[in-house]
């Protein structure tokens, strides 16, 4: 069975991971300005977390399964109401994932839904990976393999990307970085362990609370730096700011229309609501794009496009991603070359449109100017090449870090970000414990947790390495 092999492949590569003991959440409606958005939460803590954030007539823990409740979401920090919502509760095992599910129906605006998701993620709930609800449904025996196949197909594109990311990052800087951080933590751990297991051994540094705190803080700072460059979470929530640029008459509005109409993304699926199309947002296989300055593009038609380089430049300033259209039927213009320069370090995809006509563009020069960026041949007229464009957007999103400064960028994978955050909070716990004067061997439990969690990023959690470290580093023998 193809889907089984597929799932197994995902598991092998670590995309599907055995962690369905935790609680996950995601926006389960397409991102955009729909009338209603739904944030779905699934897992053992779903109802408890719901109760921490929801104020209705009755706590969710006391309501019947498969019921919907009116109330307010509050910010537990200050108790203030954030949104008016409808919350539905589906208790295990009669839910999609066979876990407790809480779905929060809120106003469709991005701000509302982001805020609610943010509140949930602050409660030790992890952002769901693409297809994870389905994976859980599957692992919990909710659907059989053949049923799963259909659903898995839907998420294939996303997960395939995520998987590639896992692989490419594995070999790259992230793994080097994580290894370095783990080494620092291992040094702390080994020293503490020696103090415990060989209390009379006089040659090991006695790790005090201060030492443990300072070293943990150093590692935490490093994780903070890494996380600050991780923009994917933000992008997932807010959409990837995307600018379509190019000389007049190159096909910008055709592309825009194409993206919008082909993806039919920003449609709410709630019965009884209007099937509105929100034109600024499109959903490319799970990657939300927020198209910048579409109104500007729409003001004109292709034939008499007035918007030129100046307009494109202004759009560039705010973009996470640039779709740069060139006319393959004409030689490169100076304006094209200037736009290449204007792109700078922003991730971009170069599109050669009008490939249905004889090619006149200097392809070698385009390739040279494009450097590492993808160059995709397109014929919007014949609807050719759009698939490849969508592939490329997906690749960029999952594969590379969509941050302007590539030197600083390490993480773009949701799973890695979640693990880094967990490790970070474990270190914070260790620091708090040390500050409170708790014994070092207690604070060490948190350091160990951070170390284990970081190990999950690179697939190393075998604690034997700690024991190996003990014996290689210290001459022990009583």
């Amino acid at each position, binding site marked *: 069975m193809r889907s*089984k*092999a597929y*799932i*197994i*492949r995902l*598991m*092998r*590569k*670590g995309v*599907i*991971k*055995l*962690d369905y*003991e935790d609680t996950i959440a995601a926006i389960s409606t397409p991102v955009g300005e729909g009338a209603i958005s739904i944030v779905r939460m699934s897992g053992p803590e779903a109802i408890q977390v719901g109760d921490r954030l929801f104020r209705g007539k009755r706590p969710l823990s006391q309501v019947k399964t498969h019921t919907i409740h009116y109330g307010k979401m509050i910010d537990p920090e200050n108790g203030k109401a954030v949104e008016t919502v409808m919350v539905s509760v589906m208790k295990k095992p009669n839910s999609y994932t066979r876990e407790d599910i809480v779905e929060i129906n809120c106003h469709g605006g991005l701000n509302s839904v982001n805020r609610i998701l943010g509140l949930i993620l602050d409660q030790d709930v992890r952002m769901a990976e693409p297809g994870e609800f389905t994976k859980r449904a*599957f*692992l*919990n*025996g909710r659907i*059989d*393999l053949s049923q799963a196949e259909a659903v898995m197909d839907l998420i294939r594109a996303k997960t395939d990307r995520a998987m590639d990311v896992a692989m490419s990052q594995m070999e790259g800087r992230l793994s080097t970085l994580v290894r370095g951080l783990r080494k620092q933590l291992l040094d702390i*751990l080994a020293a503490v*362990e020696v*103090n*415990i*297991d*060989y*209390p*009379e*051994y*006089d*040659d090991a540094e006695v790790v005090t609370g201060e030492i443990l705190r300072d070293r943990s803080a150093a590692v935490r700072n490093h994780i903070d730096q890494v996380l600050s460059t991780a923009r994917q979470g933000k992008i997932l929530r807010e959409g990837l700011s995307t600018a379509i640029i190019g000389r007049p008459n190159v096909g910008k509005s055709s592309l825009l229309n194409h993206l919008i109409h082909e993806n039919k993304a920003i449609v709410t699926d709630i019965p009884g609501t209007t099937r509105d199309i929100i034109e600024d947002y499109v959903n490319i296989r799970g990657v939300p794009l927020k198209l910048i300055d579409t109104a500007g593009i729409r003001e004109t038609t292709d034939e008499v496009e007035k918007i030129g380089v100046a307009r494109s430049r202004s759009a560039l300033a705010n973009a996470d991603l640039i779709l740069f259209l060139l006319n393959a039927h004409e030689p490169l213009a100076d304006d094209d070359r200037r736009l290449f320069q204007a792109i700078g370090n922003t991730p971009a995809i170069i599109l050669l449109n009008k490939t249905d006509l004889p090619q006149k563009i200097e392809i070698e020069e385009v390739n040279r100017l494009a450097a590492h960026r993808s160059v995709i041949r397109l014929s919007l007229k014949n609807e050719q090449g759009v698939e490849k464009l969508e592939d490329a957007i997906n690749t960029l999103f999952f594969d590379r870090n969509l941050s302007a400064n590539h030197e600083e960028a390490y993480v773009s994978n949701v799973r890695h970000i979640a693990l880094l955050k967990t490790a970070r909070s474990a270190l914070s716990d260790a620091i708090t*414990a040390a500050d*409170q*004067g*708790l*014994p*070092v*061997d*207690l604070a060490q*439990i948190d350091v160990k947790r951070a170390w284990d969690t970081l190990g999950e990023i690179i*697939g190393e959690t*075998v*604690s*034997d390495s*700690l*024991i190996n470290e*003990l*014996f290689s580093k210290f*001459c*022990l*023998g*009583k």
Partner: protein
Amino acid sequence: MKGYQAGSYDVIVVGAGHAGVEAGLAAARMGAKTLMLTISLEGVAFMPCNPSVGGPAKGVVVREIDALGGEMGHNIDKTYIQMRMLNTRKGPAVRALRAQADKQLYQRAMKETIEETENLTLRQGMVERLIVEDGICRGVVVATGAEYRAKSVVLTTGVYLKGKIIIGELEYESGPNNMQASVHLSENLHQLGFDMVRFKTGTPPRVNGRTVDYSKTEIQPGDDAPLSFSYDTTTFVKDQIPCWLTYTSPETHQIIRDNLGRSPIYSGAIVGTGPRYCPSIETKVVRFSDKSRHQLFLEPEGKETREVYVDGLSTSMPEEIQRKMLETIPGLEKAEMMRPGYAIEYDALVPTQLWPSLETKKISGLFTAGQINGTSGYEEAAGQGLMGGINAARKALGKDPVILDRAQAYIGVLIDDLVTKGTKEPYRLLTSRAEYRLLLRHDNADLRLTELGHQIGLIPEKRYQRFLIKKEQIRQERERFTRISIRPTEHTDKLLKEKGAAPISEPVRAEHLLKRPELGYDDVAGLMPEPGWKVPADVREQVEIQIKYEGYISKQLQQVEKMKRMEKKKIPKDLDYSVIDGIATEARQKLDKVQPISVGQASRVSGVNPSDIAILLVYLEQGRLARKTG
């Protein structure tokens, strides 16, 4: 040799070392008719290596043995010459007791206990082979021709299997301390199809204390406070004997380096794998060449002997070199060596051939415990012996095995590690091997295991009642700390100030105050009204630890819940891993070999990745689904 039928038993224990005595006593106390066979009655509960019991992790094991109704705690409490609490400046999770034993007294006391136990026969005899019929162990055959029948057999053969002592160029077949080695049994096990490994351990020379110049050493006295391993103990040794600390010198190291060619470890004479945590002095000198000295602890072997154990100087160098080494050690320059140190090689069973009950997978009714399973240490042996004895008796009596999990006891960690991961060197318990060490404290071993010990039938009713009272007292006292608030008064302020704690401005619940690191139980209790009954010290200790570390404890309990969910997912005994697509070849081979009983155990098999586990789960889930619908 002409054989004869020598009798039949419920349980036969082969060996009477630290594993054997626990196995035999447990089985007999559970009502099983038990025979304990040993090569020499002089070897009962013998300590061939260091004269001490306990230490980090190991000390907790002794407490666990005691809480389950084992003997080690009682026996050391009767026979120690020094007792110390280690890690007192660290957290409660890592505190540990360690006692120096009077070796001969320890043996005599244990032997007497065995002799006094009903249902238990102690007999000298060298077991040469097992009686195995249709894959079931039916008994043993002794060198004298005696054939004993039994429903279950526990092998606790220590380092006797094909034991070989090595001192420099000298090699001879021997058990520990020149006891007779057991040759045929090892061959028999091999023939029965068991995978065996060759391990090595060693021991240092002993010197005559009369000839030691203690003025050049540092004294290490025992604690004044009355300490005990057993929850039963009420009398304590008064005149404790100190240990002494000295160091090797650069000259010692030079002698070792000059003679490495004569060291069996470096000449290749020793093939067995030795433990890294208990390296010989020659290994220390070679591997840590930058260290100019190594600690040596001079430990008296008993009250009625002057023999002193030179802890830290384990060696298999030739006798001549050992004597030269001693001459370079401060305090030992003129010491008379009484016995040389030696290395000993022996056969051990690859422990992944065992179920978590310690029964072998290959032969039903055959259990193994202690060093034969690849461990090292008296406490590790005793813990296994106890569980092996319990499960052998339960098997004989037609009951299900008792298996301790990793959150229940260090013994559970130990056995799970052995049967799941195996071991490449003699296995020693370390606190870092336990994931939930805050739960596996030495102070709460009774709270963790007495109930179980009582159910098994090893904790007498009277002791159980005492335990229930303690439990109730803890509950009441905790409740009192939750109920009572401390009001801000001058008196309160003064005490808080004395302890370096911030004053309070409004009434604070006693338990909240106790959570402050500067304050202990007595401080807070002093601010509360009298409870009306005298709170015993062990109850005070529990209340303090439980309240103070509540946050961490509950965090670990959550992790345990998670772990237990995976332990509950059972794997059928006959599962054919070759039909499961997608499990990596290495993982498949390992799983095939280990045959984990649960998904939790499978996830701890080395070489098995989370993805393999996910696939295994999918497979099991599909099977369940198919059975349900089909």
